[in-house]
């Protein structure tokens, strides 16, 4: 599977046989690729039926890529494979050109279930500080990083509270601050806003964009929300279901900074949303729309 050049639409070839990893030398990845997923295949517990089969895409330096797909298509499994929490075969996932064996040093995960992934016995600051213990930092440096990360998510004032004293949205902010403080090359977010209310969700989406703009982090975000994927991403990767493969990669050339209202009013946004939506519906096996044209959202900027 070819890695898509910036500004170029890959054809929505569907789960074509041609997507299987080529036996010949694969094409060289873009030089600025941070994450390369190549022909990823994953089956649970020796089951013959893989959840993911022949999944390939690339995330470049400072890019924000959203992976979107119907529920149950293996998005969370993908994040668990990329983060090294689930073992994969050699060559399937590379980070900075190096094979991912086990959990890499430079990735941070923000889990969907913030309530369980923050430690209830630690205060907010201690939760953010938790992963820093193995970074070999001095105490003042750690304190500085924790303060900076909490400030970035607007939560300096609750550093001494416990996570369970905060609202769900604030807890997820703490989780983002924790990932940020860790200083990762790649930040992985697994359906991060799936369990908060709509207003909080919009705020958190803007927070992610803000953090990305301020810190230049590379982000891979998995979601089932089509609006969210288009609003956040530089590129949307649409997955098919059973097994998961890349159905299409759609560059999102909406202007920055994005705005919850103004951006979503743009014709380009509406088009992209429709495009992604049709693909996701097709992937879900719903009413297939024959004219699910890919690349109908106007010329792609470079």
């Amino acid at each position, binding site marked *: 599977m070819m890695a898509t050049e910036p500004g170029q639409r890959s054809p929505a070839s569907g789960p074509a046989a041609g997507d299987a990893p080529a036996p010949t030398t694969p094409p060289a990845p873009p030089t600025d690729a941070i994450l390369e997923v190549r022909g990823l295949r994953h089956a649970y517990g020796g089951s013959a039926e893989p959840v993911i089969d022949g999944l390939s895409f690339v995330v470049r330096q400072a890019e924000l890529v959203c992976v979107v797909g119907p529920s149950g298509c293996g998005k969370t499994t993908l994040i668990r494979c990329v*983060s090294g*929490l689930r073992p994969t075969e050699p060559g399937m996932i590379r980070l900075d050109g190096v094979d991912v064996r086990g*959990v890499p*040093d430079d*990735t*941070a*995960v923000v*889990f969907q*279930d913030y*309530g*369980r*992934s*923050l*430690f*209830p*016995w*630690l205060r907010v600051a201690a939760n953010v500080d*938790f*992963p820093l*213990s*193995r970074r070999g930092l001095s105490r003042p440096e750690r304190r500085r990083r924790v303060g900076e990360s909490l400030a970035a998510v607007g939560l300096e004032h609750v550093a001494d509270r*416990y996570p*369970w*004293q905060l609202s*769900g949205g604030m*807890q997820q902010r703490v989780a983002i601050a924790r990932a940020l403080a*860790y200083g990762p090359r790649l930040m992985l977010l697994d359906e991060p806003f799936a369990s908060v209310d709509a207003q909080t969700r919009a705020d958190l989406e803007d927070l992610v964009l803000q953090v990305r703009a301020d810190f230049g982090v590379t982000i891979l975000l998995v979601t089932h929300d089509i609006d969210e994927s288009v609003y956040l991403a530089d590129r949307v990767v649409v997955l098919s279901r059973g097994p998961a493969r890349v159905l299409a990669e759609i560059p999102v050339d909406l202007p920055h900074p994005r705005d919850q209202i103004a951006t979503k009013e743009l014709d380009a946004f509406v088009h992209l949303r429709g495009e992604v939506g049709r693909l996701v519906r097709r992937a879900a096996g719903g009413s297939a729309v024959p004219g699910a044209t890919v690349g109908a959202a106007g010329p792609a900027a470079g």
Partner: protein
Amino acid sequence: MRGFGRLVERWAVVLAVGAVWQLVTVRADEVFFPPLSDILVRARDNWLSGPASSLFLTPAVGADVAPSLGRLAAGWLLAVVAGVGLGMAIGLIRDLGDYVDPLVEFVRAIPPPALVPPFLVVLGIGTRMKVVLIAVGVVWPILLNTIDGARSVDQAALDTGRAFRTGRVRRLTHIVLPAAAPKIFAGLRVSLSIALILMVISEMVAANGGIGFTIVTAQRSFAILDMWAGILLLGILGYLLNTLLLVVEGRVLAWHRGARGRGEP
């Protein structure tokens, strides 16, 4: 004033029972059931009539109460260390758990006082026997609760630890142990009350000192007041020890009470 009022409220039942006991015993005038007031006076004479320089404690406290408490503490702490340590290992290493579980279930079903005869034979009547008896008798609730706690650590917490490449030791001390702490503390509370029972039993059987010894000796020499005073003292000690543990638990597990109080989000 309100705090005082609440205190009176909480203790009203105790005071009422004490008053009834006093009235009944005074009227009955039974040799073996002396009035509560007499028992309290005797208890004060025995243990709280010393000089101010030693906080009014009498030498009897040093001779009887201190050794008892020392053995209790030693046996219980030994059980805490062994129970938590082994429980963590059994709880975290699945294969080990599979082999050890049935054995643990069997051994803990043996009533600890039944171990007194063999321990007497092997360890004699000294302090060592009593400490070991207490430790062996009370380790089970701690062990079982720790195993349960270590096994039921939230997968999300473990995943978080792994995602940030938390080392083995730190994962144990900073994730598994705090997550299991609420269950461990439940075991500690049960084991503390059993420890008090075993302390008394060991001192009654292998008589060479301690509160249990005092009670038995008093009974055998018809010092009925001393016997009741000893029983009263045991009750008070048990209450104080449990209160102390609850205070420690309240501090260590403040997060747990708070988190649970909020309910699941």
